């Protein structure tokens, strides 16, 4: 069995190397930090996807504008109740093949894995509200200044102790 010792992020898409390596390096000394305050088995946790997931019947992410303006992406988020099932949602990101998520959301959105963790006591509880953005957002200021605070406020309101993020 092959073992990866150091992940090569360009293994599946070598053409993106130059673009990624040209991105700005943040200062690691300024990385934010919030300590986990209790054992995970006592924590309420939530999940955050970037796969453009939304509940069927809810407003879609704005792909019409992205098609007209390809360097723009919808910076808003959608809330998804933990009770929503595999077939209750759309998996809509235009930049990946989401057909695998339609077969089994747990390839990138592990709601069923975390419901099992809750039953088994690995986590205390899965929060009532889960979240998705659509991860192609070159215009990231509104994502950070408007969307993120709304998500954080809702998480605090629900007593969330930790968030697991799944960028696709």
């Amino acid at each position: 069995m092959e073992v990866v010792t150091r992940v090569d992020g360009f293994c599946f898409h070598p053409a993106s190397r130059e673009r990624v390596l040209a991105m700005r390096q943040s200062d690691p000394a300024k990385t934010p930090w919030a300590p986990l305050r209790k054992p995970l088995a006592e924590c309420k946790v939530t999940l955050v996807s970037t796969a453009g997931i939304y509940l069927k019947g809810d407003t879609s992410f704005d792909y019409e504008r992205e098609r007209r303006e390809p360097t723009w992406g919808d910076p808003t988020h959608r809330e998804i109740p933990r009770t929503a099932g595999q077939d209750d949602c759309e998996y809509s990101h235009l930049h990946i093949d989401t057909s695998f998520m339609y077969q089994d959301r747990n390839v990138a959105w592990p709601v069923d894995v975390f419901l099992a963790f809750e039953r088994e006591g690995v986590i205390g509880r899965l929060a009532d509200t889960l979240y998705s953005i659509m991860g192609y957002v070159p215009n990231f200021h509104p994502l950070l200044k408007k969307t993120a605070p709304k998500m954080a406020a809702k998480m605090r309101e629900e007593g969330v102790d930790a968030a697991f993020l799944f960028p696709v």
Partner: protein
Amino acid sequence: MRSGGLLQRELERAGIPTISVSTVPELTERVCVPRAVFIQYPFGRILGEAGDRGGQRRVCLDMAELLEGAEGPNAYRHLPYAWPEPPEKTRWHPKVPAPIHLLRKKLKPEEVARLTQGALRDGERE
């Protein structure tokens, strides 16, 4: 991947401890996030193949372990799991190319670079 990392930083800054999984460590280490596991899996199937619940669980448990064990920011761990298909046979592209990819094909590389850099400088667009 970059937006996910930037969002993670904002949630952490707001007081919520966070952990993410990234398929592009070179990018995530540029963004700098509090905690992340790295995995050499394709976009769209970052936790494993459809139906592979055992493999998906394993990655989530690795995330849980790092969330509990990390003692400070920029806590990264490379996961050892190898994708079962060779890269050239692994599907991750959408059936219809994304609008920016269609645009890249139409323009010269320097025009695309100018547009993309413009978009970055213009990050405040609503």
